[in-house]
């Protein structure tokens, strides 16, 4: 019977060892952060980031990993060590010179020359836990210093290498104490027993479990050598709780408490960790430094008594203060993005793999942009509610909502994604799941489709009209009833004129609107209808943001990229994702559209952007749907595309426009990201021509004949070819007379 039971236990153990020993959660990281000379910074955002990365301000010169000192003239930082397939960061002190919130120079202690670029390690955004919610970094015993092993043995089981897994004296002592107190309270376990208890058994304290523990300990000693048992123990043991997550194993504990690898622990630090095993939360250096120091000293004394520490070293180590690394909480960031990412990841890996195989997933998220986007949205929605209390809702689940997406147009990197106001209240990710009408934010695609037939100086009918749609009259309206009855192509887009746009769509054929929508991967019906030109097709905000990338990206559409790299526990890349692009239009058309949309910002519907402090070159388009159910602004520079949407989930009116609801949020966001503002505009590509045009005749100006001229850009393949027919000078005399009239206008 006993033999059968033992055989059963052994089989269970073999099964356990045959598979993976521990579940390791996958870590999801942000992108790295760059600092380089000349770069403009937003110090509060950078300091928040450094705080999240576990850098703590000190008053003196930073001397240990994780310390920093910030002033107006310098950021001094002692880098953490960090290793990834594409980022090797050694612990070193770095001096970043600053002037007027701009980086002037970067000097590293570990490099002779001035390093041009500092790459700060990525942030852990989330851990993909299994049901146990354990954090663990595996170590092998060969990497560990002898004093760490001695400290652990001194604290827990000094005779580990001498006994056979069980110490009868300890068991008898525990039994005596338990019987005396009439309850099971004393352990008296060897390291092997502790491993048996923690790894194979449930935590309840019963005699039968104790019996099983002894049997398993015996089997472990029979099957494995001492080093293997100690290594398993050091990887398994519990070192305390961090919020809902437990810290397990000496590797994770040394990183968490001392911000270093277990291989680099000092004698004193080893003694602190060894002392924690007995009662991790009571002796935690973050909770009670005095108690922790006393416990550390007990362990040092035990090391000395066992001959593992000389008297001199004992006194020396005892005198050292315990200096834990600053406390680092693990908080989930960018929750909507995480949901989006999980969707992408689960198409590559099973949930079980993600929660157990300790993958490192490197994403495109820039946490400074993400944080700025979250703040700008929250502030903007609160501002709207304050300005119009009718927008407030009693039920937080029905409150005014918004979404923000920030992308890099050439590569499709998603830098930030905010899918709602409060993830705790609503997990519905409006950035990717909501299907909303884009309203006028769709117009640029209609105008793009028209560029083969129309030019920026083409005149469009903008007068009120009734169209028959499926036998029903449809009378679209302009936002302002007093709009000009005839308006130029350029101005119609800048001022977002509905009637001119519908006429334009009819002029080129409604099927072209369907065609262009499909080219940009929007879903469009087979039977086109005229209101499509005004943005009544529903789109997901991410698709719209992506489509706008085409304009600053020379006509190419990037795939939205969220994952850059996946590495296994050994740090080896197992998946690389790159920017993939698809040409949708010519660089010249893309540039011309950008030029037209700059007028939206210069003197069109988004002209208030300048008053909001956005003074660098920007193009974009506002959007407002019927009854103000949606407010949009999609704006861009050569480096960034950012989309803001505001609305109610139930389509209530927000009683504001894209310019008044979404635009201020966009401005707030962009003003906090000076590191992404180059101040440059797109250079004109081949296929763009600049001509002097007669303002009145809308044709090439006749020098000296046309009284009012302007410069306009055209596609080479669709440019005016005719000289102005309104101002044909009959003779050179007339030309000269016109010129003189110009000089002497008062006559």
């Amino acid at each position: 019977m006993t033999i059968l039971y033992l055989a059963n236990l052994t089989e269970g153990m073999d099964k356990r060892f045959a598979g993976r020993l521990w579940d390791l959660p996958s870590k999801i990281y942000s992108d790295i952060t760059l600092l380089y000379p000349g770069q403009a910074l937003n110090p509060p955002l950078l300091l928040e980031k450094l705080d999240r990365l576990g850098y703590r301000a000190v008053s003196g010169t930073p001397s240990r990993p994780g310390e920093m000192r910030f002033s107006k003239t310098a950021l001094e930082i002692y880098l953490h060590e960090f290793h990834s397939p594409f980022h090797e960061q050694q612990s070193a002190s770095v001096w970043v010179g600053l002037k007027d919130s701009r980086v002037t120079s970067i000097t590293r202690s570990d490099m002779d020359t001035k390093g041009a670029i500092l790459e700060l390690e990525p942030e852990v955004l989330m851990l993909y836990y299994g049901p146990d919610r354990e954090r663990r970094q595996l170590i092998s015993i060969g990497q560990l210093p002898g004093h760490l092993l001695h400290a652990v043995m001194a604290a827990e089981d000094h005779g580990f290498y001498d006994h056979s897994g069980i110490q009868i004296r300890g068991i008898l002592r525990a039994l005596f104490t338990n019987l005396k107190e009439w309850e099971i309270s004393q352990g008296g376990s060897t390291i092997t027993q502790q491993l048996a208890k923690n790894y194979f058994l449930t935590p309840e304290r019963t005699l039968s479990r104790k019996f099983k523990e002894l049997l398993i300990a015996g089997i472990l000693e029979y099957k494995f050598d001492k080093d293997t048992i100690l290594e398993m123990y050091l990887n398994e043991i519990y070192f305390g709780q961090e919020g809902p997550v437990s810290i397990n194993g000496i590797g994770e504990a040394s990183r968490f408490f001392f911000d270093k690898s277990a291989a680099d622990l000092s004698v004193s630090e080893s003694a602190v960790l060894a002392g924690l095993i007995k009662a991790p939360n009571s002796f935690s250096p973050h909770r009670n430094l005095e108690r922790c120091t006393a416990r550390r000293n007990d362990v040092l004394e035990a090391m000395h008594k066992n001959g593992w520490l000389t008297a001199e070293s004992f006194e020396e180590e005892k005198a050292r203060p315990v200096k834990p690394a600053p406390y680092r909480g693990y908080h989930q960031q960018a929750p909507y993005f995480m949901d989006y990412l999980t969707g992408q990841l689960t198409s590559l890996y099973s949930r079980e793999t993600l929660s157990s195989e300790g993958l490192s997933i490197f994403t495109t998220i820039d946490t400074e942009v993400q944080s700025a986007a979250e703040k700008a949205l929250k502030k903007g929605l609160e501002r709207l509610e304050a300005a119009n209390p009718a927008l407030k809702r009693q039920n937080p689940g029905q409150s005014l909502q918004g979404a923000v997406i920030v992308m890099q147009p050439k590569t499709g990197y998603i830098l930030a994604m905010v899918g709602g106001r409060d993830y705790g209240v609503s997990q519905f990710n409006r950035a990717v799941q909501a299907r909303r009408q884009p309203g006028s934010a769709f117009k640029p695609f209609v105008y793009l489709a028209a560029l083969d037939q129309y030019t920026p100086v083409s005149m469009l009918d903008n007068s009120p009209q009734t169209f028959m749609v499926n036998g029903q009259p449809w009378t679209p309206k302009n936002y302002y009833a007093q709009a000009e009855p005839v308006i130029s192509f350029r101005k119609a887009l800048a001022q977002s004129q509905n009637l001119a746009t519908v006429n334009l769509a009819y002029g080129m054929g409604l099927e072209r609107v369907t065609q262009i929508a499909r080219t940009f991967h929007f879903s469009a019906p087979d039977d086109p209808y005229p209101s499509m030109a005004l943005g009544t097709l529903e789109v997901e905000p991410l698709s719209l943001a992506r489509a706008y990338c085409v304009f600053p990206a020379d006509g190419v559409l990037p795939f939205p990229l969220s994952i850059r790299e996946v590495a296994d526990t050994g740090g080896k890349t197992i998946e690389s994702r790159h920017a993939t692009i698809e040409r949708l239009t010519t660089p010249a058309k893309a540039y011309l559209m950008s030029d037209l949309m700059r007028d939206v910002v210069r003197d069109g519907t988004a002209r208030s952007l300048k008053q909001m402090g956005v003074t660098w070159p920007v193009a974009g388009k506002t959007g407002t749907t019927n009854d103000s159910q949606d407010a949009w602004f999609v704006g861009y520079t050569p480096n960034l595309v950012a989309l803001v949407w505001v609305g109610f989930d139930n389509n209530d009116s927000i009683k504001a426009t894209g310019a008044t609801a979404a635009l201020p949020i966009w401005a707030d966001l962009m003003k906090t990201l000076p590191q992404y503002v180059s101040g440059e505009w797109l250079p004109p590509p081949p296929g763009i021509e600049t001509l002097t045009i007669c303002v009145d005749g809308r044709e090439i100006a006749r020098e000296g004949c046309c009284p009012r001229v302007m410069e306009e850009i055209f596609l080479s393949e669709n440019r005016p070819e005719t000289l102005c027919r309104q101002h044909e000078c009959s003779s050179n005399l007339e030309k000269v007379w016109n010129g003189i009239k110009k000089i002497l206008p008062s006559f």
Partner: protein
Amino acid sequence: MELKKYCLLFKWAAMGMALIFLTGCSILAPKPAPKPEKTEVGRHLPPKEISPEPIPKPMEEPSVPKPLPPKRERPAEPPVDQQTPMALASVTFSRQGQAYLKTNKPDEAIRVLERAVNLNPRNGENYFYLAEAWIMKGNASQAREFNRLAEIYMKADPEGMGRVQSQKERINKLK
């Protein structure tokens, strides 16, 4: 009254000078015709009398030789001292990318070259080397897209354009 008289005199004098000029009088040097008033690109209000016809006017042969508009090409990268900090920072990644390509590591090269593009989308070299990396990976369609971008941004650089053209030929040979 006096002022009006002087103005009238001046007007006639100007007329006279113009007539002398037109009749080819050589005692006065020719003066260039005054330049008409210009406005910013496309920002002038259109006149109200414009025909409401939304379709552009038909193209006609011009009655006189049309002025040749300047052909615009994307300028090559400005000199280092005129580049933005972002553009300068991108050079580091660009060099890293080229080094990875030399050691036959296209994935690593793409990773850093994409960073270079994000920092400075105007540098055609980055697209050229991205196309090289995609060639190395055997992906003709992505190589072609990046080659086209390189072509746009390297137009003003004859040596660069030579490389872009030869790259295009290599891409066309890829299946």
